[in-house]
């Protein structure tokens, strides 16, 4: 090989070596960007795997969306703090909660295109930035017969008048008013057209998820001390450590307004740790989320989708049928014909919550869940499913 050719060859090899080093560097860099790239997309940019009948309204990233077939429409922009959409019965619009993070949340009425029609609550009560106890949380709106509005409100609070003691006890109780009434702390505090429907167990988180029955009465979830010496539990949870908190679904058949202790009847047991009830339209089935409990401690990494028959006339619940297990199921919603369910659960392989569908949830011997949405990370509120 001649000297010039050798020189050329070695120069080429050196260039290739340098290129290899740069390549290794870039390869690693590419690896980093793929793993850390956001795995979620805007709902309007995702692929919907399964077309559901009717329209599903849901919240994601502080925005409100409507899913019809495989098409997702944005009703309110993400980042707006929107959550917990519910339907106003009788062909009305939507109610939804708008959260101002770390301060308060308010209830709004929207039409089905997402336009705000009215602000129904005013929960920012503080005058100075440090008066945190003057703000309130309102969540879990639900409309019952006669346009009766139920919601969870963090009142009464403990020791609000004493700054030194202020703000430690903050639990939800369920309140009731007429849809359209002005909801403020003052009106709640003085029962001005707003009445207390349930009394929270202190320091448990309180009472949430009201579900009004057509014939009167209310399903709701209360959180209780499993140890049993201060809460409402009739049967303490075996093996539970002192101060363990569990949930029960309760039925208050005939609301006794402003009567402390109108706790209703427990439909589920402490060891079932059930919450997030969804009643089918003819009120014969309840879907719910129950947490496996071992040695008195509810699981923190698994929650099951459970279905049970329900007799509203007698207020009795049938055996719990755990139809989806081994995942983190949440927020079930019935189809309008009361046969199918949608719920939230992580997509396999990552922790992002997607919408899932179960056909014939009450009759199928081996219910099989199908994933509806992809590349989302849905928030904790149940979707609304309408025809």
């Amino acid at each position, binding site marked *: 090989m001649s000297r010039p050719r050798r020189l050329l060859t070695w120069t080429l090899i*050196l260039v*290739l*070596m340098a290129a*290899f*080093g740069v*390549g*290794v560097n870039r*390869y*690693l860099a590419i*690896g*980093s960007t793929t*793993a*850390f790239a956001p795995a*979620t997309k805007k709902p309007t940019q995702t692929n919907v795997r399964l077309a559901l009948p009717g329209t599903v309204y849901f919240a994601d990233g502080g925005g409100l969306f409507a899913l019809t077939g495989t098409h997702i429409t944005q009703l309110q922009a993400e980042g707006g703090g929107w959550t917990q959409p519910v339907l106003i019965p009788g062909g009305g619009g939507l109610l939804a909660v708008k959260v101002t993070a*770390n*301060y308060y*949340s308010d209830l709004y009425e929207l039409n089905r295109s997402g336009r705000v029609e009215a602000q129904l609550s005013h929960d920012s009560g503080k005058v100075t930035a*440090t008066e*945190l106890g003057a*703000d309130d*949380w309102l*969540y879990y709106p639900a409309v019952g017969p006669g346009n009766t509005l139920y919601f969870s409100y963090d009142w009464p*609070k403990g020791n609000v008048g004493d700054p030194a003691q202020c*703000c*430690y*006890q*903050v*639990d*939800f109780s369920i309140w009731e008013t007429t849809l359209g009434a002005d909801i403020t702390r003052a009106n709640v505090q003085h029962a001005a057209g707003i009445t207390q429907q349930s009394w929270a167990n*202190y*320091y*448990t*988180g*309180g009472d949430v998820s009201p579900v009004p029955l057509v014939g009167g009465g209310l399903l709701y979830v209360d*959180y209780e*001390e499993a140890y049993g010496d201060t809460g409402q539990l009739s049967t303490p949870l075996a093996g539970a*450590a*002192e*101060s*363990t*908190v569990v*949930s029960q679904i309760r039925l208050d058949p005939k609301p006794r307004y402003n009567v402390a202790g109108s706790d209703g009847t427990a439909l589920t047991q402490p060891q079932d740790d059930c*919450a*997030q009830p969804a009643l089918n339209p003819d009120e014969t089935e309840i879907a719910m989320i129950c947490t496996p409990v071992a040695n008195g*401690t509810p699981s*923190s*990494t698994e929650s099951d989708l459970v279905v049970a028959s329900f007799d509203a006339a007698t207020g009795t619940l049938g055996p719990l049928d755990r139809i989806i297990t081994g995942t*983190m*199921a*949440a*927020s079930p919603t019935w189809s309008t014909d009361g046969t199918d369910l949608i719920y*939230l659960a*992580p997509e396999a392989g*990552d*922790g*992002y*919550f997607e919408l899932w569908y179960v056909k014939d949830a009450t009759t199928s011997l081996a219910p099989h869940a199908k994933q509806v949405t992809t590349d989302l*990370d849905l928030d*904790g*509120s149940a979707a609304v499913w309408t025809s």
Partner: protein
Amino acid sequence: MSLGRSPGGPRRRRASGFRRIPRVRSILLVLLGFILSGVVGALSFFWPTIITALGATGHGIQVSAPTPSAVPGSPSATPTTVPTSSSPFTVLLMGSDNDGKFTTSSGAPYFCCAQSLILVRVNPAAGAVTMLSIPRDLWVPIYSASGERMSDGKVSEAFGDAGDGSSGANAQIATIEQDFQVTIDHYVWIGLQGLINLIDEVGGIDIVASHPVMDDNYPYDVAGSTNPYAADRVAVLPGAQHLDGVEALQYVRSRHDDLSSDLGRNVRQQQVLVALRQKLSQLSLGDINNLASALSGEVLTDVPLTQFSLLLGISKDVGSGSIQHVYLTQYSPATVNGQDVLEPDMSAIMAVIHQYFPAS
């Protein structure tokens, strides 16, 4: 004869040699060049991580051997070996607001305690992980970083009593090893902002919250706060929740409206760790720069850089169902020197600890 040698003779021999031996040498040289080039390329990529990590990792556990214990077969607190791919090892996870935002009466930075103490035993061969939370208010003998018995105190105070950084970690390790007769192979300490950064870096975490976590007096002392005594309102609702770093910290740190108090926090801390593991298991080595950047100045550990890939591999191999959650509840509330503390039932606690952390 010598005149007969042509000047080109030796050159021919060299040329002949150049064709045979140097060809092999040349190939090796080229291979070496490529390897070196690749190493330089990789080093240049990881350089920011190496610099950051040098400040945070490699702190050895320097704890004196404990005094003989009454517990038969009790383990030694002597620093142990780096984990291999199959041998079980125990890591102490510590989380705290030990960032010196408070000052003493003399104006010096006051370093606080390890608010979260979780022992994690990893058995790579079995694909199993056990997480055991130690309540921060357990009233136990406190040991110094050198293993010297100090006064009694809350178990979490060992970290702050020793000052900051690795000396605090060593004191915390000595206290737990002595009091609970376990061997700690490694530790990881993370600050509040570090946890926020880490969770934000992986895009947040996803959990199912068991009950409403409410607080009207949550300490707003990180994430841009300039007042260590500022407060915020917190409401994490039950059900599916996607939490960013700040929200996740609120979830694990809030306690004012929780009947379960520290037990509730311990449960939520382990829950968040499992959710975080889910996200971290998706990482590759190429992500280490972002990780190091997120944790810069907010983490201390004695886990050497070379073991990160092993830990990442273990994280991927262990499913959530293979993680055992243990919470110590064998105590009773008490008041000591005006402080609300937890009086431990040590015999019952030791039975639990040795069930899950066998003496070696």
